[in-house]
């Protein structure tokens, strides 16, 4: 890994990346209603400018020799207490700059889309303030030069996510979902915080440069503990098992939020954290194995549940859970997979954001309806949405030569390449999930865009008729751009190892398989394609050839029932945590009044004869300062005499 050098020249102005969106958020929040007229334009402008500035930084960095591509920019000293010197500074390296482009690029497109999507909301300005707050925090998360600055961005994006999930605060479900997201994230955050405490205890620093340089001095147990705690943080933020259940609920937020925060950027922060901490994970094989296991469980779990939902956004949400599982699995493979995880993260950023924006466009056209059973035959009504959505769909299921084909297959291949039982278990899990992905996505596309127009016989929530229509240009153009990305990003990034080579100064060189592994690369590609094709065919046979009922069929076989219930993840939370928690709260509130306080009052009664008399006596007593001083003096003298005698 290259040396870290002090930032100079263009790199020393990188603080602008944070300052621009933060400035936008501040103006919009403080300005209030006065900025209603132009607030959204300011929001968009600051993000577009940040993107341009990110591009300048990126191009500047590509012009440098590889040894100078990791730069450290000290801004000010944040928390200095003796050995603890927490810097507020930025680390500019290929990994962070790649994220900067993703965040500001996709973020900018979604900002533009939101102008149209939120045009009927009287609080649109505040929405843009929150989006800007999110972008600023997310940029700090990836640009921060130590674990504490990362933590600041980490909880900052959690706050923005909370505010945006709860946007429709009238709905109790939205407010509850927002709270749940923040809480489950906090569980992960505690893991991250404890990892920081351990690192400081052992290495006396929390800055990346020093931590990474000294990581090899840590004992095996410490490394595993740190890796495990960082993984806990990653699970919270990225919706990985066992902290996955907040992410589908987060779909209560406006759809651009789901696209930006809960698909393309924030939920990938866990992958970033593991990739960023590669010098730690490189040293602990048990830590890496744990990451792979979590990734494999999650990618299967997400894909299975995704098959059972009828809510278009929830299917996409579980798809996101599953795809991030792939990324986790990749980065858990260490030097064989860090770069692959990032490649999939980027290509997923394009096609999943595009899919969500497409879903938003459908909802926009269908009076905010999300139940796919009420859709159908929307292809002709909204062709641009349908085509861009279709390209995203093909990219996601790994259709040959589109993005997912390159980025997802590489991960499945790397999983098989491990050889032994691990190769078979993790490789097969990833390949089977690819088949499930093809199934649930095909089901979604058929139910939404093809078949009979089921909405024709239905009424909207307000009792009116549905009038599906194509979205305005301000919404379709971002969708078109993202669709182009879904088609080309995978090939562009992977061919010739373009991205992997660029990331080498941050992640180390990408290692290729040296042995045969469990299956040869050709066999893996063939297996994945066959499974995906099978998923598509089954979906067409099962859904496309039959009438889709407007009400979901009940009762159903137990596997479907289990999937509809999120494989009982929520039930488990409820029985293990929520109910006992409520009971404990009730019990303690009661006993605090009757127990602790009752005991005290009881003692007072015992001493004073009756609490009323005591109260009266004491009231009279303290009324007079002189009397109280006299009492004090008497006690003083008595005490003095006592001590004298005993001494």
């Amino acid at each position, binding site marked *: 890994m290259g040396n870290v050098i002090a930032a100079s020249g263009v790199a020393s102005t990188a603080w602008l990346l944070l300052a621009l969106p933060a400035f936008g958020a501040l103006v919009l929040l403080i300005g209030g209603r006065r900025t209603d007229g132009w607030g959204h334009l300011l929001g968009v402008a600051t993000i577009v400018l940040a993107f341009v500035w990110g591009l300048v930084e990126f191009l500047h960095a590509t012009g440098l020799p590889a040894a100078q591509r990791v730069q450290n920019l000290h801004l*000010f000293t944040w928390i200095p207490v*003796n050995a603890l010197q927490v810097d507020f500074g930025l680390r500019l390296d290929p990994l962070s700059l790649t994220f900067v482009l993703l965040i500001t690029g996709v973020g900018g497109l979604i900002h533009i889309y939101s102008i149209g999507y939120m045009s009927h909301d009287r609080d649109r300005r505040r929405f843009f303030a929150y989006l800007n707050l999110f972008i600023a925090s997310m940029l700090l998360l990836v640009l921060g030069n130590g674990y504490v600055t990362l933590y600041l961005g980490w909880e900052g994006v959690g706050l923005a996510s909370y505010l945006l999930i*709860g946007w429709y605060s009238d709905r109790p479900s939205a407010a509850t979902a927002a709270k749940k997201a923040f809480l489950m994230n906090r569980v992960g955050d505690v893991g991250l915080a404890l990892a920081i405490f351990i690192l400081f205890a052992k290495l006396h620093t929390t800055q990346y440069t020093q931590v990474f340089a000294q990581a090899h001095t840590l004992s095996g147990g410490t490394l595993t503990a740190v890796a495990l705690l960082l993984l806990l943080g990653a699970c919270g933020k990225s919706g990985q098992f066992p902290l996955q259940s907040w992410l589908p609920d987060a779909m209560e937020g406006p759809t651009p939020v789901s696209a930006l925060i809960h698909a393309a950027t924030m939920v990938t922060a866990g992958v970033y954290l593991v990739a960023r901490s590669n010098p730690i994970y490189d040293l602990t094989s048990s830590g890496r194995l744990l990451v792979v296991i979590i990734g494999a469980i999650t990618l299967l779990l997400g894909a299975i549940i995704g098959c059972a939902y009828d809510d278009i956004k929830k299917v996409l949400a579980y798809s996101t859970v599953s795809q991030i599982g792939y990324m986790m699995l990749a980065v858990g493979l260490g030097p064989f997979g860090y770069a692959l995880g990032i490649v999939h993260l980027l290509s997923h950023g394009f096609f999943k954001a595009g899919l969500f924006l497409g879903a938003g466009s459908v909802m926009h056209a269908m009076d905010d309806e999300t139940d796919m059973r009420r859709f159908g035959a929307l292809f002709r009504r909204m062709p641009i949405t349908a085509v861009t959505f279709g390209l995203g769909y093909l990219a996601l299921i790994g259709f040959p030569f589109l993005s997912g084909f390159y980025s997802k297959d590489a991960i499945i291949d790397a999983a098989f390449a491990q050889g032994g039982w691990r190769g078979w278990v993790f490789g097969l899990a990833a390949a089977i999930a690819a088949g499930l992905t093809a199934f649930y996505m095909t089901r979604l596309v058929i139910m939404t865009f093809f078949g009979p127009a089921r909405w024709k016989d239905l009424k909207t929530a307000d009792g009116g008729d549905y009038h599906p229509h194509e979205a305005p240009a301000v919404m379709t153009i971002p969708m078109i751009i993202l669709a182009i990305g879904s088609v080309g990003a995978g090939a562009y990034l992977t061919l010739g190892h373009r991205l992997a080579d660029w990331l080498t100064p941050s992640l180390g060189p990408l290692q290729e398989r040296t042995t045969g592994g469990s299956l040869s690369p050709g066999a893996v590609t063939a297996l994945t394609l066959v499974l995906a094709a099978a998923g598509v065919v089954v979906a067409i046979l099962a859904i496309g050839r039959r009438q889709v009922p407007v009400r979901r069929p009940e009762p159903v076989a137990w596997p479907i029932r289990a999937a509809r219930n999120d494989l009982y993840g929520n039930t488990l939370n409820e029985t293990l945590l929520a109910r006992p928690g409520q009971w404990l709260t009730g019990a303690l509130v009661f006993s605090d009044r009757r127990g*602790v306080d009752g005991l005290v009052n009881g003692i007072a009664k015992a001493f004073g004869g009756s609490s009323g008399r005591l109260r009266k006596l004491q009231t009279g007593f303290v009324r007079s300062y002189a009397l109280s001083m006299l009492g004090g003096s008497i006690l003083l003298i008595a005490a003095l005499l006592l001590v004298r005698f005993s001494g």
Partner: protein
Amino acid sequence: MTVLHTAVATTPATTSGNGFPVLLALLLVPLVGAVLVTLFRNDARTAKLVALGISVVEFALAVISIFSYHTGGARIQFSGSADWVRSFGVHISFGMDGIALVMVLMISFLVPVVLGASWDEKLPEGRSAAGFFALILTLEALMIGVFSATDVFLFYVLFELMLIPMYFLIGSYGGVNRRYAAVKFFLYSFLGGLLMLASAIGTWSYVQSVTGSGTFDWATLTAVVSHAPLHTQIWLFMGFFFAFAIKAPLVPFHTWLPDATAEAPTGVGVLLVGVLDKVGIFGFLRYNLELYPDASRTLAPLLLVLAVAGILYGSIVAAGQSDMKRFIAYVSLAHFGFMALGVFAFTQQGTVGAVTYMVNHSLATGMLLLVVGMIAVRGRGSVRAEDYGGLMKLTPILAGVFFLAGLSTLSLPGTNSFVSEFLVLLGSYQTQPVYTILATIGMILAALYVLWLYQRVAHGPIRGNALVSVAGGPGAATDPSLGARKMIRDLSGFERMVLAPVVVLILLLGFYPKPLLDIVNPSVTATVQQVSVQEGN
């Protein structure tokens, strides 16, 4: 014995008299102000203006004192001393280290804010605003005295005297159950104080038997008694411990706090929870740790258990409260647990964290209380969460400030409280990993109780008996939310002025806490070295 004598001999070098006039002025200005204010008994407006003017002058003095403070210089600065009771070696002596200095700054910053927030306080029948404001100024002087006293007997006297204005502020100006709350508060604190007095006298007596001359001078006592046999130290430790564990309430000495906070007028509550209770944590540091370092180390597990119990117990009970003022009291119980954890882990970072926690908790909890008071003004005085709903729509700015105070309460990074909670936990982890891991559960619970309260009060449809009743009863308008909207105003310009300085400090200290840390850090070093076997990080 020779060791002791050199220790005593070096004591004077650790104090510096520079700037004593500033401290003297800090002590006298509010007292003189209180007398002045009572002259305007019949003219409430003038009385209030005079009080506010005095408190602003006091704050300016405190700011000036920062410039007289020499960071990294003598341990105790601004020192001055006069004999009081010569035969017992009692002095009237004052002085401040960095810890006392930031607390004095905090007090003088909060008092103008509190006076502003109490401007339109509805006082009970027959009570004058002049009396109310004069009592607050008196309390200010006494609190500054407590933090700057350098004679143990003087500290005791001021510690008890401080109760008197607070007793009247709660008992005469508070809510329905004010009498009960005030007496309970007084009894608890007073009894704790008496135990402390016994310990102080015991310490005096021990030192007298060793050196042959009795004195209550803190530095001299520290130099001698810190070498006393362990069992002596433990006995003496206990008296101070009870006084401070009641004051900065630790479980199970806390039951006076919810009653006092709930019954006290909002502004008085801010001073009670925000400043007065901090004397307990300050006392642990200045008296327990420094006078009895061996006992502190021996008894640390007991304190750590109480600290963690307070964090978890306070958080869980807070989650179950619907009275917002009692909620704040239980949240504070949890926060005092964090402070005690930082103090009794004996590390530099943990202790600096605890001291900055004292300041940051004042800001966060103070603002939360002020906001609750402002909500209550709009809802016929109700502080019950179930009386409200949808404030975000009705009064977005008020709800926004409420939310910010909540974020600071749950120690979100970027707010002031994060810095201190992070330092406490990071520092404690170095020596007490098990207690620290248990304490981090409090981080999760904090998110739970804050966001749950906020959801009930600010989210959802506009709702609430109290609010709608102001507008003329639920039947008065067909759309109750519209009827309410007409009557309920968002924050007035004056209210914004009162809250703005707190908002600014919350964010400023979140991103740039360095000036605060730099003042506190060297003073903490002395305490940590005194109590540590080997030096911390």
